[in-house]
């Protein structure tokens, strides 16, 4: 194929027009005749025994059709699965409990379900359910929870879910060789995904007796888990994914699906369930808080000699994705740096807090805050320029991470750091109480799932008799242009304009399984599957056209619904003619392709070694901040994001991801924290949980590098999660540059900055 015509162009997305017109329906926009309204009763205690549940008054309320508790669930307990079809074992799959049974483990844990004729009736019914609790001691700090005398969160198992290790060389030797050693403890908080669309779905039983769930989700393949809960065969549950109003990892676990399936199963009627915003913040997964104790040693010339880290993450009350997130952190903990001696110990620990799971970055942003702060502090201590010290230590293609994975593809860090920093320009002149500072940070984030999950994706393409194209793919679209990127790939390969391509997505009964929209994997996995399928059809078409035109198919190309001879002869055929000829000959005018990521198997679950991910995306952020040293308020003046994206399939979309990721990271750095005290969420609405508004954001500048060396289609890399990675340390490093104090825990609230400045002046001690 010659020069790309559609890939790499700034093309508006298919779904964007429909969204602009208000034509796309999100999960809560659907209704069905005879629909009931579901509601969930949730525990007011973080840790308690359930003595009794009396649902009789609720059941008697006119208009209530069913009230369910744990005993009504055919299989209330099973194992969490995250859309993969390969079982991994080894503690990666934790207990999944639909409704609390004899105990409650976190505030907000679901205890009962109600379906009523109206929302108001269902809400009233919740108040009529009488639950007798016996409060029990709970544990709310992961370090406390690791102690032998800590209350057990889940009966019969240790609070420590997993202990992972990374070992390289001998750290004692490495620290001995170091001429300077920096030791710090970093803390990062619970954070909410705060997608604007609260969780929602609608379920019904179709004419074939199939439990059908239309839901806003990143993982339609939870249909298997839901079927197991109901004790039904997998093909008797169907999940249809809607266009998602924001996911970010928060709609990666099962949210409303299980509840909806149960309620529709028991009542025989359609049931709708939508979380309130307060319910969403209180009860869905959060980003893992981490305590990270880092010790980094370097020579006077800046070369790193050793790194030791202890990571402790708060898993909350249920396992969910905690071991996986920790594993990512383990691989990323040393950063993209050459360090001869490394020891990392990571623990993820159950507590009676809200459960934690996937959130954009999945363990990478947490450790990036630590390792990029460490290297920045080293630079200051040694009097070495922050760019230079990084360049000295950045890994290059062909070298390996501390955990042993060889970086087989281009590592663009020197370029991204340099370009990001230079785009900052001259530091804005400070005025009065407002000091200015500049900071940089670089990071690495994987894309594609861990390779021992044996990840696959499928895509089905068919070309109609008139040359228009239909794509069927299980891909879930969460706003990152997932669906439209597949259309672009097909448009490029088959020479069919975008307007002639239709895509059906996210239906477990009707679209081939494409795996989860998580782990920044869809462009890589479904993109490649789609590319493969399109190329097969292209081969068939060009072979036929070659016969018809009596020309070597190698010379032919598909452009604008025509087959043309690229080597000059005037011959051409319309696509429709070729398609019809293929149909007459009984040739396949469709293809379903399966793309496999590399497979590996874990032989042990303790020491993290070797290849874990298909590839990484590398990038940097450069930030300029203004800090009012008296109020502590930080304003970000400039924010530059520079990433090697491999190949920008749609530059407009890629920029959008980088800009959005930058602000997602800025919120993490400055204003976002789900404050949890003794298991109670104290920031229940968007008035307390503060997202950046349009008045808080700088003009983000994005710089794309296209090395072409990604493993996605056309050499693309994934950017959805990587775009967040290094924002927080870049901001923290800029704040240090401005005021000469470093803050070791996020968010960098005005109060923390004022306290830190006072401590620096020696007026008060920080506790």
């Amino acid at each position, binding site marked *: 194929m010659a020069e790309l015509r559609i890939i790499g162009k*700034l093309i*508006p*997305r298919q*779904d*964007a*027009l429909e*969204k*602009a*017109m*208000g*034509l*796309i*329906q*999100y999960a*809560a*926009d659907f209704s069905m005749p005879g629909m009931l309204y579901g509601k969930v009763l949730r525990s007011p205690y973080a840790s308690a025994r359930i003595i009794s549940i009396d649902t009789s008054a609720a059941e008697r309320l*006119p208009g209530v059709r069913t009230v369910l508790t744990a005993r009504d669930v055919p299989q209330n307990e099973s194992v969490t699965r995250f859309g993969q079809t390969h079982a991994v074992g080894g503690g990666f799959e934790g207990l999944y409990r639909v409704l609390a049974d004899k105990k409650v483990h976190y505030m907000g844990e679901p205890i009962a379900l109600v379906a009523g004729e109206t929302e108001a009736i269902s809400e009233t019914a919740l108040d009529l359910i009488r639950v007798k609790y016996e409060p029990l001691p709970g544990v709310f700090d992961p370090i406390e929870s690791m102690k032998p005398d800590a209350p057990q969160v889940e009966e019969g198992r240790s609070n420590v879910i997993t202990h992972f290790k990374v070992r390289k060389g001998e750290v004692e030797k490495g620290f001995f060789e170091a001429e300077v050693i920096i030791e710090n403890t970093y803390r990062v908080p619970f954070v909410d*995904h*705060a*997608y*604007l*669309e*609260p969780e929602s779905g609608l379920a019904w039983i179709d004419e074939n007796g199939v439990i059908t769930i239309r839901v806003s989700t990143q993982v339609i393949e939870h249909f298997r888990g839901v079927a197991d809960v109901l004790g039904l065969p997998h093909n008797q549950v169907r999940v249809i994914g809607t*266009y*998602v*109003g*924001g*996911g*970010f990892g928060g709609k990666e676990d099962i949210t409303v699906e299980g509840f909806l399936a149960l309620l529709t199963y028991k009542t025989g009627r359609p049931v709708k369930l*939508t979380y*309130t*915003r307060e319910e969403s913040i209180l009860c869905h997964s959060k980003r893992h808080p981490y305590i990270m104790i880092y010790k980094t040693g370097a020579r006077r010339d800046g070369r790193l000699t050793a790194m030791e880290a202890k990571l402790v993450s708060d898993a909350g009350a249920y396992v969910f994705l905690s071991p996986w997130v920790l594993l990512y952190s383990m691989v990323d903990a040393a950063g993209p740096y050459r360090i001869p001696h490394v020891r990392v110990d990571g623990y993820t620990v159950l507590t009676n807090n809200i459960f934690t799971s996937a959130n954009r970055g999945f363990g990478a942003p947490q450790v990036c805050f630590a390792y990029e702060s460490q290297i920045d502090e080293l630079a200051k201590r040694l009097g070495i320029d922050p760019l230079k010290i990084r360049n000295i230590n950045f890994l290059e293609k062909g070298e390996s991470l501390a955990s042993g994975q060889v970086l087989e593809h281009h590592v663009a860090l020197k370029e991204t750091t340099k370009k990001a920093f230079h785009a900052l320009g001259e530091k804005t002149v400070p005025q009065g109480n407002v000091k200015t500072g500049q900071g940089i940070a670089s990071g690495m984030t994987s894309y594609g799932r861990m390779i021992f999950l044996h990840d696959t994706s499928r895509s089905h393409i068919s070309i109609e008799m008139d040359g228009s194209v239909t794509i069927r793919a299980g891909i879930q679209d*969460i*706003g*990152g*242009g997932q669906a439209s990127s597949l259309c672009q790939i097909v448009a490029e390969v088959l020479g069919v304009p975008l307007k002639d391509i239709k895509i059906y997505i996210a239906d477990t009964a009707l679209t081939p399984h494409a795996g989860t929209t998580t782990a920044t994997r869809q462009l890589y996995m479904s993109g490649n599957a789609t590319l493969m399928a399109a190329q097969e059809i292209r081969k068939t078409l060009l072979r036929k056209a070659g016969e018809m035109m009596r020309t070597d198919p190698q010379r032919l190309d598909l452009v604008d619904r025509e087959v043309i001879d690229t080597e000059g002869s005037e011959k051409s055929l319309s696509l429709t003619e070729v398609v019809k000829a293929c149909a007459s000959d009984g040739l396949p005018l469709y293809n379903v392709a399966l793309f496999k990521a590399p497979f590996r198997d874990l032989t042990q679950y303790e020491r993290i070694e070797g290849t874990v991910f298909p590839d990484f995306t590398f990038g940097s952020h450069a930030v300029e901040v203004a800090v009012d040293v008296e109020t502590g308020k930080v304003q970000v003046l400039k924010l530059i994001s520079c990433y090697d994206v491999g190949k920008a399939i749609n530059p*407009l*979309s890629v*920029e*959008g991801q980088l*800009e*959005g*990721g*930058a*602000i*997602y990271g800025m919120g993490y750095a400055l204003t976002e924290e789900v404050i949890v005290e003794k298991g109670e969420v104290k920031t229940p*609405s*968007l*008035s307390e949980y503060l*997202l950046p*508004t*349009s*008045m808080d*954001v700088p*003009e*983000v500048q994005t710089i794309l590098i296209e090395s072409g060396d990604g493993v996605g289609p056309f050499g693309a890399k994934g950017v959805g999660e990587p775009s967040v990675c290094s924002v927080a340390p870049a901001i923290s490093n800029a704040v240090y540059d401005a005021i000469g104090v470093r803050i070791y825990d996020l968010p960098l609230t005005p109060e923390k900055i004022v306290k830190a400045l006072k401590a620096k002046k020696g007026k008060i001690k920080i506790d």
Partner: protein
Amino acid sequence: MKRRNTYPIELMINGEWKRTEVIAQETLLHILREKLGRTEVKEGCGKGDCGTCTVLLNGKAVNACLTLAIQAHRQSLVTLKGIGTLEKPHPLQESFVKHGAIQCGFCTSGMIVAAKALLDSNPHPTRQEIREAISGNLCRCTGYKKIVDAIEMAAEKLR
């Protein structure tokens, strides 16, 4: 159970008169979505913190979740669909699409309505004025840059 007081109301939505019945404490957002089929008006938080329910009430941009349904009686309402359609799109809608200002799209409805209110009263907004006008509309996906670009470009096109 106590009989609820219901009140018949009529309101003009996107140029058409509609009638329905409401109770005193029902919000405008609720009746728009549940009784009048206007699901393009979104619910993100129900208490005025996010702006996804922005509508024009007598030309002013307001949160439908913070307005009582009954207060819309005999008033004129414009939603996203009243601003433009596929057949006759508004430059704001076209601009949002063209400039990549739409990712998940959930904030889009409220955002375009708020932008319309701005351009109706200020056809030459600066970028800062645009930011201020949409400061009641949260977006979690885009970081706002392309949204501000889109509104700026639409204002130019309208002039």
